[in-house]
């Protein structure tokens, strides 16, 4: 799809890093403050969508992005399910919190919850980015 005007591109260049950092912050602090993997993942997906809408892309780059997005979505799902199965292997309970609890209100605490947040963020972000790419940016069906 085509890009947008110079104003949109300049503003995008300025704000996109801040939005990405905010998304990562929401994910990593999911067990301490409101937010978590789902919200942070959607914000991270939003930065990629913003870049695509502002700068556009060729049909080839869109197809490659869709492939990368689906790979990352599967990786996130695999990470989430492997944390759950590790719980079975180590303690005998599905989704058992097998890591140390740590001190509450510290960044490294709450056992597997931060890892699950990161897995969900990768999965949700890549999945929603793929959906938007397929629905809004691609021209597969219409032009073929």
């Amino acid at each position, binding site marked *: 799809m085509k890009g947008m005007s110079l104003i949109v591109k300049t503003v995008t260049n300025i704000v996109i890093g801040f939005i990405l950092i905010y998304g990562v912050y929401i994910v990593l602090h999911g067990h301490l*403050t409101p937010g*978590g993997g789902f919200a942070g993942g959607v914000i991270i997906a939003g930065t990629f969508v913003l870049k695509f809408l502002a700068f556009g892309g060729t049909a080839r780059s869109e197809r490659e992005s869709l492939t990368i997005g689906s790979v990352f979505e599967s990786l996130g799902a695999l990470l989430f399910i492997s944390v759950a199965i590790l719980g079975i292997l180590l303690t005998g309970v599905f989704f058992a*919190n097998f890591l140390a609890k740590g001190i509450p209100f510290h960044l490294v605490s709450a056992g597997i919850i931060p890892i699950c947040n990161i897995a969900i963020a990768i999965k949700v972000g890549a*999945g929603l980015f793929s959906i938007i790419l397929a629905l809004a940016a691609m021209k597969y069906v219409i032009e*073929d």
Partner: protein
Amino acid sequence: MIELYLFLAFILVAAIIATEIKDLLAAVISLGAVGFAVAIVFILVQAPDLAIVQIVIEVLTVVIFVAVISRTTHIDETIGKKLAGTQIFAVVLFAFFAILFLVVMGKALYQLPAFGHPTMKIASEYIRLGLGQTGGANIVADVILDFRALDTLGEATVLFTAVIGVAALMRKSGRKK
């Protein structure tokens, strides 16, 4: 509580505008207004986790809708047309079931406990044990990723299925010309 009811009334008005307006772009913007008002309502009833998710999802939804509309058509041609015979029957049937639903729903809602007084003990147990058993300071993260992580796995599966469905619908290879 008055501002809560103000926003609920705003949601109703914006939703009715979204269904009745002829320009689809205006309808989508009206739908976005509904979503952001829902986010504010979540903040007012002290659910910031849900408010963040609602805001970001609403932004992405409006982006999808605007992108699709800008590639197809702006005008909803079904609004303002006269209804055919079978459509009138469908509308009457729908109105009957809607009124029936409202009557039954009113009776059911009348028997619910007051706002902030849950009937089940399990929620208060989660709140009591959350910090000690999981170590997470955010009780919502404790519940969705530790106590009820299986539910979250189901939710992730739903999203995974949705992505597979979209990719299958929008695929290039294997389509009949």
